[in-house]
Structures are given as structure tokens and as C-alpha cells.
């Protein structure tokens, strides 16, 4: 029982953190262009000349 009092809120806290991260990324417009984001992962422009 004591472990539960500690672990259940912890689990919820972690879940809430994930939720907050999702809402933040949603508001930051990261879901506007999923196709493009998938392709951007393959870009090697940061290797070429050091610029990002």
C-alpha cells in the first residue's frame, strides 16, 4: 500500500509529462507537416557544411 501511494502518482506524473510534451509539440505546429518531417530525418545538410 505504501509503495502504491508513491508509485501511482509517479506513474501519473510521468504520463502527464508525456501529455504536456504532446500538447506543447502540437501547439508548436509539429504536426502540420508529417510527411515532410519524415523526409527531413534523412537530410544530411548538417554533415555537409556544418550549418544547421
Amino acid at each position, binding site marked *: 500500500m505504501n509503495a502504491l501511494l508513491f508509485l501511482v502518482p509517479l506513474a501519473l506524473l510521468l504520463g502527464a509529462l508525456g*501529455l504536456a510534451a504532446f500538447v506543447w509539440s502540437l501547439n508548436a505546429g509539429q504536426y502540420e507537416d508529417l510527411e515532410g518531417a519524415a523526409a527531413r530525418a534523412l537530410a544530411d545538410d548538417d554533415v555537409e557544411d556544418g550549418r544547421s
Partner: protein
Amino acid sequence: MTMDVDFSALATRGRNGALRLELALDGMTCAACIFEIEAALKAIPHLVAARVNYADRRLSLEWTAPDFDFAAVLERLRRMGYRARPFERESGENAERETARRLLRCLAVAGFATVNVMMLSEAVWLGGDMDEATRDFFHGVSAIIALPATAFAGQPFFASAFAALRARRLNIDVPISLGVLLSLAMSVYETLTHAPHAYFDSATMLLAFLLLARYLDCAMRRKTRAVAANLAALRAPAACRIAADGAQNYVPLAALAPGDHVLTRPGERIPADGVVLSGEASLDESLVTGETRRRCVSAGDAVYAGALNFDGALTMRVQAAAGDSLIDEIERLVEKATAARSRYLRLADRVSRLYAPLVHLAALGALLAWLAAGASLHDALVTAIAVLIVTCPCALALAVPAVQVAASGALFRAGVLLNSDDALERLAEIDTVVFDKTGTLTTPEPCVVNAQEIEPELLALAARLAHSSRHPLACAVAREYPRAMAIEGAREERGAGVIGIVEGVEARLGDLRFCSVDDVATDEDASVIAFRHGERVALLRVRQTLRHDAHETIDALRRRGLRVLILSGDRAAPVEAAARALGVTEWRGALKPADKVARLEALRDEGRKTLMIGDGINDAPALAAAHVSLSPIDATQIAQAAADAVFLGEGLGPIVTTIDAARLARALMRQNLALSLLYNTVAAPLAMAGLLTPLIAAIAMSSSSLIVTLNALRAGGANGSGERDTRRKRCFLPPPRGGRSSAEGDREGVTPRVFAAEPHPGPQSGPTLPLKGRVNTPTLASTRSPCATRIDA
């Protein structure tokens, strides 16, 4: 030859003081284009940010310096083979994006709550030896999660239900909201009284499922709208405005105001309604009136947006606010016709109108019956809640939208953009198809009709020469070989033709006298132009021709048991010729817009459900008056605004595809409704008998939703397999007009489609695609624009 259009009016100021502008892009074929574009734009001075949105095919730019050379960006993109046009995001699109975000946020919260509450509930169900204090603790934590989560995630439903109740109606959201709220209230009560069960999980799960369905629906619509808006921006033509000091500059049509003076050159379309101030020209008004014979105008004559200027420069005064212009009359007709159609009730609405009261009655009945049978108020309430949840119109709510999403997605890939959300249902009901002739059954632009009779080599040469001119007849010749190289040094003699030197021999394309050819007899619909290369001479007959698959399409429609009619604004003779060629027995010519509407109303009174297909300004009222309507992508803007769907491409094939898809979709919708009703007839009595707890009810309800959704997916798979074209899927653009024939002279058979993957250099313009309900004067002012300016590198 680039037109420098002044777009500064469209830029908006961002938060950090930088100016922002979005561009619609055409020509992106793969993800590598993203990096190519962004890397190329890095070099442009003062540009702070350039980011490509690959899903929407858009590029957003930010710059700081006020004297930023915007034209340089367009020029650079053009050289790389991308067509780009500044683009003004519509308020409707922003609102839709916000709705999608809101739904996604709600869905995330509901999903989070479901998962966590479920984790706790499972412990309660499975932990048989759990002591009471732990159980109460778990229920308490569930309440702490579920109550705020439902308060947040349930808002879309609560708001809609509240609005419906205030209007003294019942909609599908009322039983949903009631079920959720009651089960929450009940669960709180159970928790406080240390009861063994609570039903927080059923409330959150219900919301998560429903939100998922709504989000998918919204995302689909948003995607269609974004692509439609891109098409509009890419094709929006510009008008050449003459300032008070005589300076000419190209401005977007939206910037035109009444009283402006506008110059229209040969080959361009009249940008707005107005009065000719000076100049003479013959106009092709087939898109405006349906009449294919040309009209000569001079100072003092009224001209209408959409007419094609054949020869001669016209200066005109814009008169959009005239009040009794053609457009005003048409607008009134469209409004009247649209009002009549708005009474259409969707299938889901019809069912839910019956269903919602039934659900409430069943739940109330269960409550009262159990109370009468001597059960405690608590047990009776639990049963009533189970009834509410198990009969929750989830499956019903999903049944129709899920099919719509799948079917409209399939149609989207096949090149049909749906304008209104009940178009599919109405399309499935039709038994009569009414065609406009000009621009619909026939090509909107003139074509060379006797191309087969001419030596291919000579025709190719004529086409090369024709690429140097913007005259509509030259454009028709140029379209025979769309990718021919223009002849160096060719020059145009105004009002006569084009002249150039090929292999040391002079070549001329133009009117008969210009090419020293004797007069020949012509029929009144065709224009004859001559081509002379040294001693060799060819006569080219140019006329609007039937679209290449008009025959097959009409046969396919007849095979489906549909009655086919032609109603045209053109004179009787050409209409009869077209009708005879296509084997259509019912046709009328010389109809005014109001006559078309009257004819459609007569058909409706006969009990016919009509599909109207048309493209001209004069068709708009008829499109709005018909039971359902379609427009080709090269239609005038007002026609597209009045139509329920717009199809891309050169041919009429998408019409048949659309009807088939709609019929399949309707069949699936009915299956789905039948499935969910069947489910309810089994589950509701069980729930009323008190055999289901709210949790089991929620699981049963979810699985019924799942079955319905899976069934709906068939609408997406079964359609479009034959028509699908991956290139089109990527680009969503019709082939350039000239894509019809290849150099090998393949004129009637297979169409070698050239899609937008080909670079289109230079400003090319065409029709714009507005969304429904935007029929207002600025929209009307912008209609089809001239033949493309071709620039050969």
C-alpha cells in the same frame, strides 16, 4: 517575359516584426525537393526563414528588410522548375486548422485518461483480494484523473449538445453527453459510498473513441481544403492595371476595385465585369453565355469576366458594383437555388433524429421499469446508464462519417475534390445526368480539328512557331506539340500572325492573307488559319471539339441506367451536332441561365434527381439548382463555387468514377447503419435486463464502432484502382492542357498524361478553385485566365 505581380499586399507581419508570406508550390515530386528549395533560398539576402511544408505543398517565407526582393525568390524557384504563387490563407482554413488542433488536444487528454484509468480499473477487477481501502484509493485516483479530463475532452460534445438543447432539438451529442455525465456522476457516488465498482473508464473510453472519429473526419476535410486552396493560388491570374499616371502593373485580381482601369491583351481573359473604354476586339464568351460565336466589342460595350479576348487590346473600367450586371443576376439565381437545396437532410441526421429520442426513452423506460419491479434507485440508475452507453450512437456517429472519409479520400486520389460533405449521398441518388455543352462536353479551349490531315512534320513546325504567340488560335496549334521548342527570333505581327525563319526559309502562321493563301469556304464555328513554310502550305481548322472520352463517358452513364440530357446556352445548331455525335436524344440550345434552372426544376417536379455538370458562369445557377453538381477543374470560379465537387484532368472519366464511388459509399453507409441498429437491437435489451455493467457496455459499444469503421474502409480500397495514377496522387494537378497528344500523333487513343511534375516555367494561369459559400463579388471578378505563357528555356 515574367509578369511582375505586386504581392506586397499579401504579406503579414509576424510576432518578431518579420514579414511573412506563404507560397503555394507546384512541381514538388519527392522529399528531396524540400532540401533543394530550402538550400537554394538560403542564399537570398534578408530572407530570415524559408520552410517547406511538404504535406500541403507550401513554402513559408520570412524576411526583415522592407526592400526585400521578393521577385528574386519567385525567379529562383521558377528556374529550378517550381511554380510558386503567393497565397493568402483563408480564414476558413485557419479555423479548420484550429478545430483539428483542438480535437487532437482533446483526443490526447481523453486517451491519456483512458489509459491511466484503465490501468487502475484493471487492478480493481483482477485484484480479487484487494482490501477496501486500496480499492477506494484507486477509485479516488480514477476520479481525480477522469473528472478534469472529461471536463476538457468532452467540450466538443457538451457544447454541441447544449446548443441543440437550447434550440429545443435533440442531436446525436445529447445522448453522448448525457451518458458520459451520468456515468461520471454515478461513479463519484459509488466511490464516495465505497461501492465495489466505478465506471470512470467507460466515460473516458467513450470520449476517446468519438474524438478519434471526429478528428479523422476533420483531418480529411482539411487536407482537401489545403490542396484546393493551393490550386486556387497557383492558378489565380493577375490583371494588368493602369494607374492614373499611365503606369501598368500586374496585380492580383483581389486587388481590383470598381473604377480601376484595366488593360486586356489578346489571349487574355477579361478579369472583371466592366465597360470598354477604348480598343476593339472580338471576344469568345463561351464560358460566360455558352455561345461559341464570337462577339465584337468596342468602346461603350459591357464585357463580362471570363470572356477570352481574341484580338486587339482593350482598355476597360472595372464595374463590379454595377447591380444589374450579368454576374449580379447570376448571383441572385445561385442564391435562390442554393437556398432550395439546403433543406437536404443527411442520412445520418435522418436516422439520428429518430434515434436520439428512442435512446432516451429506452433508458428512462429501463429506469422506471426497474424501480417498479422493486429495485433500488441505485441499481435502476446503473441499468439506465448501461442502456445509455450501450446504445450510444457511436457506431451510428461513425457509420456515415467513416465511409465519407474513406470514399472522399479515394476520390481525392482519383482527382475529384468534394466541395460539400453531403455530396456523396446526393450523388448516389441521381437518375438523370444533365450536361452543359460548351467547356464540358467540348474542350474549353479551341483545338485543331483537322490535325490528322496535315503532315506531322509541318504541324510540328507550325506548333513551334505558335509557341511565340499568345493568340488563342496560336495556342490551339501550340497545344498539338506542347513541348516543342519555340523558334528563335520568331516575332508576332499584331492582328496578322507569327513569322520566323526555319532552316533559312521563312515560315508564317496566321490569317490567310498573311500567309498569301486564297480564301476558302469555312463553316461558322471553325476558325481557319494558315501555315506556310516556303512552298508548303497547310490550312488549320480550329474549333472546340468534344472531349476525348465524351463518348465512353456517356455510354458508361447510360449503362448505369441514367438518363442523359444536354442543356446549353449555345445556339441550337452546334448543340444538335454535339448531341447527335454523342447519341443524346434530349437536348436544348440557346438557354439562358434562368431557363436552365427552370428545366432542372421541371425535371425535379417529375421526381428526377439530377446531376448537373457544367463549367461556365452561365451554368452556376443550374449547378446550384440541380440535386447535385460537378464541375471540371478548368471551369470558371463561380461554377466551381456552386458545384458540389470538382474533378481534375482532361477527360470526363472522373464523372463515372465519382458516381460509382458514391453508390458504393451509400451502400456501405446503409450496411453500417444496419449493423449498428442490429447491434443495438441485441445489446439494448440485454442492458435493459440489467445484464450489462456500464463497463461491458462501453466495451461492446467500442467494438461495434470498430466493426463499422473497418467496414467503411472498404470504400477506400474498392475505388480508384483502375484510375489511380501515382503521379497525379503526388501532384494533385491536372495535366497541362497540351498533354493530349504526343509527337507520334496519338490523338484520340491513350492519353499520354504529362503531370505537374513537369516544370511549368513562368506564370501560368487558369481557373481558381474557391470553396463553397464564397460566391461574392471579388470571387466572381476572378475567372478563367488566358492561355499559358510558355517560355522555352
